[in-house]
């Protein structure tokens, strides 16, 4: 019998797991994919929003602000990449300025500090790359950027180290209320691998959270996958923008943003298209055209010829456009974290802390006396002073063998990514942890070597190594195998 089963190993599920691991109990995370951070959490703007945008009084507004305040400390405690770079919302014409004022007012009501409307002159000094169109901007100094993979992996590893189990390739097929031996209410969680019993369930299933919710509640919800295409530019564009630059929101969300990433790339996106397919993360040429056109309003000379990859993410949009959080009234012991779309990445730690607290209260969980709230991330040799790097390579020569030349990632780092708790099992798993294959050649040079390393480390046939789990095998066999 588990105390809590968390469904979904995205940023929300992993944040709940991490804060829950501060309490004593038997907890597990069930994830239908092969790794953490494979859905909405892996394909988004990677922004820590200041919190001026969400409607005052909404859960989005509340948890956005709380999450924003938590990130700087969490990034230190759990050792993931976060930069407080500030954001700008551009007014593209004089008529937009009242909208900036409305945003500022809303933000101040939400409790966002330091908001300021800046004129074009000040805007140009803050963000010199801005083009000729924008006339003014709302400056939010508390906004930031984060590595969403790094943050999710950090929450997951820390939860795991504090005793939370993780079950991958484990899709939840059914949830039914039951009674335990003592007659107390519990849930039976059915998966392809069998059933388990648990006192409580957390629904952090992203775009699937309606399916999970509707298994147990008569108050149905409907999550619409809202697709957003993105373009990612080469690291050589690093420094083109300093702030996260939005445009005044229109009816489809926050519009197109241009932002630096914590690794020095530039990201442009997202589009917004409501679709039916919960796995429909295919990009479209219309989407690319749309992004380029809209980004062109903010910048005259955005280096779009330096695109190295494009991708699409699915936001878990709920019709009422607010988070659905907490215990479901007609399903005691079932806790929703549904409708987690933007600013979900920002809100995740605050949601995690809140839900973990609610669970602890409902289940009467004691504090975990062995809880360790800090975690050391993967060592990054590139950040070491020369003498220390020399010493590291002398002691562990594998850090001197560069496998990914574009991002300068060594074999030692790739082995780390695989050997960590909840280590990488696929090419994408390695990429998300240590950036091998994330660069301008997009794994053209390094993938054959990483496939071999994965096969050696997991002791499997290289033909079974996948790009991203499931049936995404990279090769179909061996040459001359039909001879």
């Amino acid at each position, binding site marked *: 019998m588990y105390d809590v089963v968390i469904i979904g190993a995205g940023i929300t599920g992993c944040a709940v797991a991490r804060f829950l691991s501060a309490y004593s109990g038997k907890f597990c995370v069930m994830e239908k994919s092969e790794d953490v951070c494979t859905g909405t959490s892996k394909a988004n703007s990677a922004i820590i929003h200041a919190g001026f945008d969400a409607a005052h009084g909404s859960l989005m507004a509340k948890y956005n602000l709380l999450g924003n305040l938590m990130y700087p400390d969490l990034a230190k405690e759990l050792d993931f990449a976060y930069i407080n770079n500030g954001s700008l919302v551009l007014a593209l014409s004089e008529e937009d300025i009242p909208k900036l004022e409305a945003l500022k007012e809303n933000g101040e009501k939400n409790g966002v500090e330091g908001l300021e409307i800046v004129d074009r002159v000040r805007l140009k000094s803050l963000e010199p790359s801005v083009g000729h169109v924008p006339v003014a901007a709302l400056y939010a100094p508390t906004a930031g950027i984060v590595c969403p993979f790094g943050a999710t992996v950090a929450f997951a590893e820390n939860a795991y180290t504090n005793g939370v189990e993780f079950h991958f390739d484990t899709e939840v097929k059914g949830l039914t209320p039951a009674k335990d031996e003592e007659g107390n209410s519990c849930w039976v969680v059915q998966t392809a691998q069998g059933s388990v019993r648990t006192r409580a369930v957390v629904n952090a299933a992203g775009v699937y959270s309606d399916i999970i919710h509707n298994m147990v509640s008569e108050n149905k919800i409907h999550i619409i996958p809202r697709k957003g295409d993105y373009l990612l530019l080469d690291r*050589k564009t690093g420094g083109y923008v300093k702030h996260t630059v939005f445009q005044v929101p229109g009816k489809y969300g926050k519009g197109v943003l241009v932002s630096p990433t914590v690794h020095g790339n530039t990201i442009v996106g997202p589009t917004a298209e409501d679709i039916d397919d919960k796995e429909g993360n295919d990009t479209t040429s219309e989407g690319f055209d749309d992004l380029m056109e809209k980004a062109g309003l903010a910048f005259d000379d955005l280096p779009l010829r330096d*695109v190295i990859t494009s991708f699409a993410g699915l936001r878990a949009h709920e019709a009422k456009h607010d988070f659905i959080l907490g215990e479901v009234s007609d399903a005691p012991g079932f806790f929703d974290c549904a409708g987690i779309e933007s600013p979900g990445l920002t809100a995740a730690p605050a949601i995690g802390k809140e839900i973990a607290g609610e669970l602890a209260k409902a289940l009467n969980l004691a504090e975990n006396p062995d809880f360790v709230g800090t975690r050391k991330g993967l060592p990054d040799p590139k950040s070491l002073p020369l003498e220390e790097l020399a010493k590291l390579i002398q002691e562990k020569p594998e850090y001197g063998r*560069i496998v990914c030349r574009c991002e*300068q990632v060594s074999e030692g780092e790739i082995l780390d990514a695989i050997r960590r708790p909840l280590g990488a099992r696929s090419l994408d798993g390695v990429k998300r942890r240590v950036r091998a294959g994330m660069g301008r050649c997009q794994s053209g040079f390094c993938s*054959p070597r990483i496939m071999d390393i994965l096969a050696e480390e997991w002791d499997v046939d290289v033909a079974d190594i996948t*790009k991203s789990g499931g049936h995404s095998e990279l090769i179909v066999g061996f040459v001359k*195998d039909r001879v």
Partner: protein
Amino acid sequence: MERTEYNLIIIGGGPAGLSAAVAAYDEGERSILVLERDTRLGGILNQCIHNGFGLHTFQEELTGPEYAQRYIDKLEERNIEYKLDAMVMSLESGKDGMKEIMAVSEKDGLMLLSARAVILTMGCRERSRGALNIPGFRPAGVFSAGTAQRLVNIEGYLPGRRVVILGSGDIGLIMARRMTLEGAKVLVCAELMPYSGGLKRNIVQCLDDFGIPLKLSHTVVRIEGKERVEGVVIAEVGPDRKPIPGTEEHYDCDTLLLSVGLLPENELTIGLGADMSRVTNGPVVNESLETSVPGVFAAGNVLHVHDLVDYVSEESAHAGVCAARYIRDYGGEAKEEVKRIPIEFGGGIRYTVPCSIDPGKVEKYLKIRFRVGDVMSSRKVVVYLDGKSVLTKKRRVMAPGEMEELVLTEKLLKAHPDLSRIEIKVEEDA
């Protein structure tokens, strides 16, 4: 930490680096180090197991590894020092004209090196799917042709059984044949442009001989399959290179190979601050193949992408000779002001290598290499010195896929002592 000093460091031990090292040695330079990031010398030739290399250099048809071995033997005979598995992390200008290099390797650890002269021979990489903005899903089974070539020829892995190829660059054409010989079915080769970017002989020997259709003015408009490629949709494109609605054709396949262009790998060059060409994506060089940073030379595919390795070897040998002379004449010290005449060009020429000439530096002759931007027929290439036509070369057909060359002799340049203008033009040949 102490720096180890060499006169000449060559970054990259592929065909360009090997040839440059040998030529520098033969010019008299003895303090040479070649840094190679792979586990063996020879670069990309090691995975090019087909033949056709060396017809110009050795008057023989060699395979890629055989061609490389000829140069590796020359390197070994001369006892030129090299390090394998050695990745250069940074290249900077140091004090007194010295160039400072930080490199790492498993065997030698972190290495701090300095050199009077450096030759950049890092080669090129393939354009990826992302750089093309091909829409659709992102499943496994989309490979650049060179990655597939490595998987098949070096690792012995079969990347797929039903293959669509986008782009008719030479590696794509070679892989169409290779995949067919390994038992895969290559369904089609689609090319965005109305002409192929590959060599004519490769189209005949790798596509025509195996009945693989080449569809010019076509591109991939959609990749299907969420885990592994399940299908690819190609469509015809109009003169604006945009897909024409209604021309879509679906192919059931498990693999898409991309052979859509090569990009010189100039991260170190850009980091050094050398002037770059937006056309070639390589550094701007003078007649000595020297970049805008004195004492730093470049040759081979890092400078501009070549069609044939023979020309890479030839060009790199020139860089090796020039680097050795630079060390001998200047010892790494800053040079006196030199005469630099830019090469002007027109009539459809996209770029020239070199970009400028100091006539006093030309010994015997200088080869100028260039490409045109479109397919053209019945042309002549004319060289004007100070406005006077001095050289004409007739060309029946010119194409972007075939590199052109011209030879300017020392004698011709000497005949114009006050030379101030050099122009190369492609003109109609009536």
